[in-house]
């Protein structure tokens, strides 16, 4: 039996007058990759940010290992949970290694110098994301794919058991998308990292996730394994598409290889 590492209870979040979702309940299992999918504006990023306490909920609670997150200091949370935001920004003159070392913030006592433990984790983060080669470069000199790996390395340097990724593959080419997701998979397999991510590509979600949360208009439509979610009826309900699905003979994951809209019939 896999235990729940995060539990959201009656969560309501919104911006000023506009509520994105209300009274939402969900659980995230420890040691698994959970992906949130859904159409634009369904609230999937908002849910991720609320779980990661980047956005403040209007009501309800998020429990981190059965502890109300409102009662834990934000620095303590940062030791357990890291979030890679959708469009991270840094000064362009910043050196890669320095940016990655920012991830050590919640662990550092002396802000002036890095401890040997800090350096060790930074090296590990660069190694696993394959960013060591350009550690001395400035952010300005990196391609989009390299940048995304550097940001991932910074989140890894935070040395947390939970990783939240907000559309980590957006703006990347096909090869870089796969590379980032394979790093995530490796983190989960070898380091037992719990991963919660938002993805647009349902095929990627199916291939890399243990569990998929499908959202629509601020509600969780259904939660299940890739095979349960990549089904004609679910995709019709969530995305209003007529999907054609088969099983990838290479890895056994369900794949949506083509789809049409229902717009004309309805």
């Amino acid at each position, binding site marked *: 039996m896999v235990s729940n590492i995060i539990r959201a209870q009656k969560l309501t979040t919104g911006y000023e007058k506009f509520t994105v979702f209300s009274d939402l309940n969900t659980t995230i299992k420890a040691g698994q990759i959970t992906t949130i999918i859904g159409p634009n504006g369904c609230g999937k990023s908002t849910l991720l940010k609320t779980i990661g306490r980047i956005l403040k909920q209007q009501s309800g609670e998020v429990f981190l290992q059965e502890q109300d997150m409102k009662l834990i200091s934000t*620095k303590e949370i940062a030791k357990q949970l890291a979030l*890679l*935001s959708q469009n*991270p920004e840094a000064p362009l*003159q910043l050196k890669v290694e320095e940016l990655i070392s920012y991830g050590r913030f*919640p662990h550092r006592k002396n802000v*002036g110098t890095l401890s040997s433990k800090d350096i060790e984790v930074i090296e590990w983060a660069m190694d696993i994301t394959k960013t060591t080669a350009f550690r001395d470069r400035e952010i300005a000199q990196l391609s989009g794919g390299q940048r995304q790996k550097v940001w991932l390395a910074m989140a890894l340097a935070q040395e947390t058991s939970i990783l939240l990724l907000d559309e980590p593959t957006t703006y990347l080419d096909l090869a870089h998308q796969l590379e980032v997701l394979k790093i995530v998979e490796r983190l989960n397999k070898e380091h037992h990292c719990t991963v919660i991510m938002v993805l647009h590509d349902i095929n990627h979600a199916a291939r890399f996730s243990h569990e998929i949360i499908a959202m629509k208009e601020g509600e969780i439509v259904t939660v299940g394994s890739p095979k349960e979610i990549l089904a004609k009826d679910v995709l019709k309900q969530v995305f209003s598409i007529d999907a054609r699905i088969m099983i990838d003979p290479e890895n056994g994951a369900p794949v949506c290889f083509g789809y049409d809209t229902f717009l004309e019939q309805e």
Partner: protein
Amino acid sequence: MHKQYRKRFLMTSSAAISLIFIAMYIHITNGTFDMSIKDVVTTLLRINPNNDFDLVIFQFRLPRIVIAALVGLGLGIAGTVIQGITRNGLADPGILGINAGAGTSIVIFMFLFHMQLVASSSSNWLSILLMPLFGFVGGVIAAIIIYSFSWRNGKLDTQRLILTGIAISSGFGALSMYISLKMRESDFEMATVWMTGSIYNANWIFIVAMLPWLLILIPVIYKKAYLLDYLQLEEATIKSLGIEIEKEKSILLLCSIGVISACVAVSGSISFIGLMAPHIARQLVGIQHRYVIPTSAAVGMLLVIFSDYIAKTVFAPAEIPVGIIVAIIGVPYFLYLLVKSKA
């Protein structure tokens, strides 16, 4: 990697300190009454004191140089912090209206307490010491107005911050003007000269009045300098690292307002130092704030001492307020930055 920055910082700061001493030397020896370096040194060391030299150095030139240095230091630091918090290189205490806010409340203070043009008598002691406090209140009021108008969706909207700042700035400017027109003639002159930013009626009491503010607030800012590095990231990442972003921003902003108010209280509104010094500093030592802040402080000192020297010599014996000289240097620099940032 860090050693390289450190080396650059140490080199830059030694160069800056030497330049500051050279500027001080020129400033103290030149003027309507030229002195040799020997005269200055012997006077400072109290060897064969001469009454004329004593008067010129201790009553006129030295306090003026010290104030120029302190104001430059304060504005250089505050400018760095404000640019760091807003993540906007064109932000400046003057543009954000904090100067104007502090200025208005000091004009009100002058109006109420009838400050004399030459505030030398010791009866004015208490009121001079109170001036920075008044300035602080005005600066905080301006900041609260700016903050509340630029607060959107639970965070600070930098674009709005700048726009509101400009509006607030002209609003407070008009208010200052209105109040100063209601003043007695002597107060009015004092207020006008002070508003354009001048330090030629420098006085040891002014130094005593501003020093505690700098001594208390600058260490707090320096201690949090490393946070300014993190504040250059975007909000979600900062929060994810476990930084209480709005709290830290507010502490840094309040400390800067305190420093600015103390500077404005003694020197009036000298703008552009807070804008120029951080830029020059970043070009010299890179982007790490624990190096940028002291460098910007040194650059600010140098700029104000140098500008004040020009202010006192160009049309000697007539004096131009130092703020005007700084603006003459600052306006082209500001335009240059604007053009560069667009490209």
